[in-house]
């Protein structure tokens, strides 16, 4: 089955040595895809290529089998929510949301569509409000309503939650997912936070230095990373090599990645000394220094070990790379 939104070997070159892509991705109708990566990984470039703000140096983008690579942003019918929302400060909320409906003939239908879009984001009756009177969360929802009002084919979100304070972020994340799922629109969003990608995305594409490292559902990325970058970027990870890797059950010279919660204190295994204990409530992270001065973390019961104690550690599950 081919995807609703197809990205085929898309590529963008900045100067002679910085390149994003070639990247290929298939996104099915109604799916939410997260582009996850550190800054400079090319995720924002990818989003801007999709929106049409950057022109690709190679490859193609297709929606429902229609090639949109040469289509300028104004005709592409991709909705976009900008990182800082880009709400027009000279227009009120209703005019902002109605901006993309200018083509519609009848005035009544514009008003109805604006009202419907605002209702969708739970801002019924906010048409006459000034943009700068709104809170950050409300501005974000207006930006979403504005992007959705013209009924775009694809929704793009650039770091949708980075402008909100942490207390608001988790709630907004769920509301956002709920609205997108209700509309059923195919969505691509950019984030550098793993938690956000896991929570909001159906699938996640991990980017690094302009390359696509891995695509998959959250469990897959966490439990079966295909390379060291994904293993360490997605979630906490201890990396073991050589003697210590073999002490945890590796055969050969491979690299072993073990999540902190997959290590536990035991009577035998990899030896080390507890250097630090970071208490987080339900559990504690123990920072261990091994005999070869390698350092790693164990997540365990708060009273599982004491700082300065010599301990042995064994792994309950390892990722061999």
């Amino acid at each position, binding site marked *: 089955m081919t995807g609703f939104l197809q990205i085929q070997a898309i590529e963008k070159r900045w100067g002679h040595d910085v390149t994003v892509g070639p990247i290929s991705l298939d996104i099915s109708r109604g799916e939410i895809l997260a582009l996850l990566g550190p800054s400079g990984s090319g995720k924002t470039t990818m989003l801007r290529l999709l*929106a*049409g*703000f950057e022109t690709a140096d190679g490859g193609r983008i297709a929606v429902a089998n229609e090639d949109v690579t040469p289509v*300028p*942003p*104004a*005709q*592409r*019918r*991709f*909705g*976009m929510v*900008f*990182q*800082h*929302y*880009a*709400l*027009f*400060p*000279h*227009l009120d909320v209703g005019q902002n949301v109605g*901006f*993309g409906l*200018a*083509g519609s003939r009848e005035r009544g239908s514009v008003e109805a569509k604006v009202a419907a879009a605002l209702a969708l984001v739970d801002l019924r009756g906010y048409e006459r409000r*000034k*943009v*700068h009177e709104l809170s950050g969360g409300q*501005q974000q929802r207006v930006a979403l309503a*504005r*992007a959705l009002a*013209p009924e775009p084919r694809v929704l*793009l979100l650039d770091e949708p939650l980075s*402008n909100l304070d942490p207390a608001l972020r988790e709630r907004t994340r769920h509301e956002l997912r709920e609205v997108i799922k209700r509309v059923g629109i195919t969505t691509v969003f950019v984030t550098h936070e793993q938690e956000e990608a896991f929570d909001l995305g159906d699938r996640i594409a991990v980017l690094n230095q302009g390359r696509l490292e891995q695509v998959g559902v959250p469990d897959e990325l966490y439990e079966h990373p295909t390379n060291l970058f994904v293993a360490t970027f997605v979630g906490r990870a201890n990396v073991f090599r050589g003697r210590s890797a073999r002490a945890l059950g590796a055969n050969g010279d491979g690299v072993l990645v073990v999540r902190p919660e997959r290590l536990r204190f035991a009577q035998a295994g990899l030896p080390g000394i507890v250097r630090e204990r970071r208490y987080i409530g339900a559990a504690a992270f123990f920072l261990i220094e091994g005999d070869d001065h390698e350092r790693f973390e164990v997540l365990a019961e708060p009273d599982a070990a004491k700082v300065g104690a010599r301990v042995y550690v064994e792994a309950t599950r390892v990722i061999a790379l």
Partner: protein
Amino acid sequence: MTRRLRRSDLAAAALTLLLAWLVIYPILVVGVDAAHPTALTAFFTRPGEWAALWASVWISLVSVILAAAIGVPLAFLFEWFDFPGRKTLGALIALPVVLPPLVGVIAFLFLYGESGFIARAVQSVFHLQNAPWRLQGAAAILLVHAYSMYVYFYLFTRAGLAKLDVSMLEAAQALGADRRATLWRVIVPLLRPSLVGAAMLTFMTALGSFSAPYIFGGGFRVMTTQIVATKLNGDLPLAMVETVALALVAIAGLVILGRTEGDDILVALGKGIAPRPRPIRRASVRWLAAIAGWGLAVLLLLPHLTLGLVSLVPYGAWTTEILPPVINLENYRRLFSEAERLRPMWNSLWMAAASTAVAVALALAGGWLVVRRRVALRRAIEALLALPWALPGTVFAIALATTFSVHAPLRLRFVLVGTAVILPLAYLVRALPLTGRGVLAAYRQLDPSLEEAAASLGAGRWRTLGRVTLPQLRPGLAAGASLAFVAALGDIVASIVLYTYETRPVSIEILSSLRLSETGVAAAFGVVLMLVSAVVLGVGARR
């Protein structure tokens, strides 16, 4: 704490009174004295008065339209497109700023006037008996205004475009708006504050413009020249009525324009990243843009070059030739060796420096009281600092001439006219809005925690001021002070009403040189003013 507050409130009261005495009191004196039955009757019955008032209004409005028509497209060209020579040209294009009004006008006279270069060239090419045209009347005034005032629109629009958030434009595109729709529905509304600001500045400058109508007006009178003519004829009561009429027009103009500015807060919510200049891809268009740009630069530079050339021609050496037959430094030698010619130079320099220094000191005191101490009188102080901007220079010249020609100490009126104090005082009044705006804006941007940090590190009040506050305020302060200094240096409006022979500034000397047909000396004075202005503005604009 309470003692400190009481002391700053006292200082605020003193500053408010001083500013009111300088800025409002003379206007009130004129307003009261203008209620003079015969003068009022004369004003309302003579058709010439109404004609001059109307001329002032329409000349100012057309100046705004012309300046916008030139300045706005140029700003878009230089901010959004890249072509060969863009950076150099972009700096050159603000060149008219370094020409003080009177100097610009005489440069135009030498260049486009009936005996200027262009006219001579046309005359000799076509073997004409007389000069092909006369640079006179409304058209001449508008030409000078368009040349010197498009810079406001150019600079304001460029600043506005530079603040435009590129994501606004992208958002409009993503919502299906094409280029035209983006321009009219997003860019122009967002630029509105910049455009209105430029329109206000142009309108006020054109309304107060004196040099161009004075030199080129001929029989065509605007209110500023009418007032000075009436005053020089000795009809002071009528001059006061005219002054009040001009002041009322200025205020009405500001109120009407101010209303179109609206009260919207047009600040983008996020941090704005301005669009990068787009290279012009098509070679033919690139070259067209470059050629047009350099052609424009030459056009803009012609007055400066003309002035320089005329200043090198000794007295009487140039009669009918297209280009001068003799060129030497005789005029400059006379300028710097004859005591009678050096005097106006020193007069202008020290009076401009003194008025600027006092204006800076008052602005600093005002900034500290308004922004840091937030005294109860802060609105009054701010309004008083800004007020002289809202009224043409001629209004203040007449007001000061009236108020300070009477000895009445109990009414705070002293005889200052005829002394060396009156001109610096007049310059100071005109300088207050410039330094005040610069310092207040800089003070508002200054994070108070910087001063608190200095205090917590043990710095006393003066050390904090010298090591932290002033260096942080420096850009705004320098910009305001350099503008004030250059305005005072080139002033003609107040000078022509208030000068004495002993205190005559350069502008008056230029006029009298012109009257004696010593064009070379007048041009040499002009070049000196231009160079000093350029250096001072250059220093003031350094970050």
